[in-house]
Each structure stands twice: as C-alpha cells, then as structure tokens.
C-alpha cells in the first residue's frame, strides 16, 4: 500500500538514507526506531516532500509520489506530524486544524476530530502557541488528520511528553487507525510506546534497516541494544 524501493536521501554529498526498501500494508502501524541522528527525521521529511529524495521511488496505492510537491502529496493522501510539532503558534486551535482542511476543500472541521481530542474542542479559540506540549502534539495530529490521509507519518510524537500521556497517545493512535482506516508510520526512540502500539517494529541505523520484525517476535533486549549508544 505504501512502498519505498531503493530509497535514498542525502544532504549534498552526505547520504543519510541509503537503499531503503519498505512495504507497509493497509491499516498497519509500523514503528521505526533509531538513535539520535540515524536519519528518522530526514526520512520523514523527505516522504512528505520537505526535502527531495535522491534515489528510488515512494508509492502510495500504486501512485508514484516521488516528483510531487508537499501539498500534492497531502492531496494524494499523506499526512504529516513533524518532530517538534510545528503548529502555527499565532493562530488559534481551530484555525490550525482548518489549515489541514485545505486539500479536502471542506469548510467545517469534522466533529469526530474533536471527539478524538476533547481538549482541543475546549480550547479552540486559544492561540496554538499557548497550549502545553502535549496539547500541541494533539493539535498537530488533528491538523494532519483534517486532510483525511490514508497514511499518517509521525516523527517522534512522544518527545518531551510524560509517560501517562504517552500511554494515552498510543491508545488514541490505535483508535484512529480503526476508526479512520489509516496506515500509521511512526518514528520513535521510546521502545515501550512502540511495543504498545505498533504491529511491526523496524530499527534504522545509519540510514539502513537493520531489523524488521512483527511486534510479537520483537525481542526487547536486542532492540534495546540497538537503541543504546
């Protein structure tokens, strides 16, 4: 459904992602684990078209996305929640979500989005910049969902968020998958979160996939070894 073949990304001469092959099925949740600087953000940003890829192709439901601009990828069904959330801080909560409606042409925020994130409904007239980190994360997810993606990319959604909220986020993401039939690809460093929500665990190191297992077969110790310096 979402496929990368011989995919590569580079900053100038330095290759960060090399020869990546990955096939993600419909409604699957895949967690990509990796230490700092292993290329998770680079991969995610290139998938949404913020930085160009260097080699290979990326396809969604058979459609080649490689040459599309960011907004065209969103129209094609890719949603993106960046590391650090990057919400529009001077705009209100509801305005932030409305920016995500651009590609659908809808005018009104669908009510089921607010029922996923009741806090956002309560705060819809506040400026995004005045929300807490956890609330901003929910806002970033809601904004990405507003475009009705068929695949949702999340880059380290747990960064800077306390454990109890992380648990809740895992639950919400699984709920989003079943309610909206979304494929989810999430990059992570928090192993417990990945084990909690994903169907499949990938470990990326120096731009290559070094481990690819279903979550039932994932061995905590092996993965921990990859994640520790």
């Amino acid at each position: 459904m979402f496929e990368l073949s011989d995919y590569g990304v580079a900053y100038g001469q330095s290759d960060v992602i090399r020869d990546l092959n990955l096939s993600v099925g419909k409604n699957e949740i895949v967690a990509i684990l990796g230490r700092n600087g292993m290329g998770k953000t680079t991969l995610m940003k290139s998938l949404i078209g913020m930085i160009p890829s260097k080699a290979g192709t990326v396809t969604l439901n058979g459609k080649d996305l490689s040459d599309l601009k960011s907004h065209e990828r969103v129209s094609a069904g890719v949603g993106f929640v960046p590391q650090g959330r990057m919400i529009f801080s001077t705009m209100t909560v509801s305005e932030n979500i409305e920016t995500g409606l651009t590609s659908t042409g809808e005018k009104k925020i669908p009510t089921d989005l607010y029922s996923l994130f009741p806090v956002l409904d309560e705060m819809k007239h506040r400026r995004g910049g005045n929300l807490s980190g956890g609330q901003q994360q929910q806002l970033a997810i809601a904004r990405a969902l507003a475009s009705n993606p068929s695949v949702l990319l999340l880059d380290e959604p747990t960064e800077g968020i306390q454990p109890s909220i992380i648990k809740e986020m895992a639950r919400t993401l699984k709920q989003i998958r079943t309610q909206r039939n979304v494929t989810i690809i999430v990059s992570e460093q928090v192993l417990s979160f990945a084990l909690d929500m994903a169907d499949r665990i990938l470990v990326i190191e120096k731009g290559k996939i070094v481990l690819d297992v279903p979550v039932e077969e994932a061995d905590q110790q092996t993965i921990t070894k990859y994640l520790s310096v």
Partner: protein
Amino acid sequence: MFADYTMAELTSIFAMQGFAGLILFSVFVLMALGLAIIFGQMGVINMAHGEFMILGAYVTYLTSNVFSSYLPESLYGSYFFIAMILAFFVTGALGALVEWSVIRHLYKRPLDTLLATWGLSLIMQQLYRSIFGAREVGVTLPDWLMGSYAITDLIEVPINGIFVMILTIIITVAVALMMQKSRLGKQTRAVVQNRPMAAAVGINTEKVDRLTFALGCGIAGIAGSAFTMVGSTGPTAGQLYIVDTFLVVVFGGASSLIGTVASAFTISQAQSTMEFFLSGSMAKVLTLLTVVIILMLRPEGLFSLKMRR
C-alpha cells in the same frame, strides 16, 4: 510660528490641515496595506508599488474618459465605482503576472527582488510616458464629490476627502476581515509563520504567494483611484509616495494592521499640519527625525505581536 494667529484661527487651521491630512492618510494606508501584505508574506519589498498605484490612477482616468465621451452624462456620477473595481483587477492581474514571471524565481534572494522590482518600476514609468505622455493628467470629479461641507464658519471639509476616507476604512476593514476569516487569509497566515509546514499540511504555497502579491498590487490600484481625487497623475507620481509608504510600514511594524493604520495616521497628520507652518521639505525632515528616534527606542515598530514561540 504660531504667534501670528489668533486662537480660533489656530484651531481651524489644525482642524482643516487635519482633514487635508486625512486624504494623505487614506492614500498612505492603502499603499502601506498592500506593501505590508506582500512584505509580510514573502519578504519581498516591492519597489514598483508606487507604479502599481499609478496604474490604478491611469485606469481611473481612462474610465472617466470613457464615461464622459461615450455614456450619457447622467451616468458620470458613478464612474468612480466602476473605475475602482477595474483598477483593482487590472493592477491585481499585472501583479499576478509579475509574480509568476519574475518574482517567484527570486524568492530567498532579497537583494535581487529589490533590484528586479526597481527595474520594473523604471520600465513601468517609461511605458506610462510612452502611452500617456509625460504631461500629468487629471480627472473631472462628478458633481456630488465637489465642494465642501462647512462644519463651522472657519472649518470646511472637502467632500471628496470624506469620501476617500470612508472608502479607505471600508477597504481596510474588508482586508482585516479577509485575513482573519477567509480561507485564503488563514492560509496566508500559515505560510507566513512556517512555509514548509504550511505546504506539509496541504497548502499550495505558490498559489497563495501569487494571490497575495496580486491582492497587494490590487489594493495599490485602489489607492491609485483614490489618488486621482487629490493629485494629478503623471508617470513618476508614484515615486513621491513610495518612500513615505516605506516609512509608514517600518514605523508601524510590518506584521500589524493596526500598527500600519496608526503609523499612517501619525505620519500623515504630522506632515500635513507641519506643512502649513513650515516648508514641505522641512516638515518631511522633522517627520523622518521623529520616526528615526522612535524606531531607535522601539526597533520592532509601533506595534508587534508578543507570542510564545
């Protein structure tokens, strides 16, 4: 300098110069609005903004000519409204064309856009000279805009001034509402805050750029329409206003609409009041000095949004 006047005379001088300043204020606000929108959106300083205004003025002039030569005289009173709408769309379309053909290739190169738009302003001036001649042209105001309204024996307000000001208020409010409420306005604000992220939520940033540039130029066109009521239109008339408009934008803090309005008001009032007592250039020097001093105290301009990032 006040000693030669009685108290009553002084009051009426201030009041009348104040009203005269209001027309200047209107032109400033409309010009600055367009300039600030374009600068805020893509960091482009449009050196040709004055020429876009003059294009609006020429469109108004042509429309009034068509009305007076081809249409029954009873319709002449309404030419201004048609002219204004035409001016908006003609300058807006030219703005979109310029953005598409030149500006979009120069984003991230501020110096190059400065040079390119400056070159554009020279080209436009030359075109005006070739098409309309070097002589200044003026429009005949319809009857209902002529004359003035006497508030007291000494204070008279020109009706065209009042009209231009009401027009400015309506347009400013409309632009403010558009930025706040409309989809384009929200998309524009998102692009201004974080361009790559705006694209990653599905906004076509290039389209937003083009529309914003067109809108900014279109408003300059309306400023040009208003300008025909108070000045005569010539190929280089736009140059006289561009510096003052930059001043207004910088002084107001480029990101704030209220700031722009307040700063246009201050600068136009200061100039027009002082011009009565001092020479025009002296008034300008004093205004500039004041602005420089205030900017040294508040480098971010009069108004700026305080936000947690």
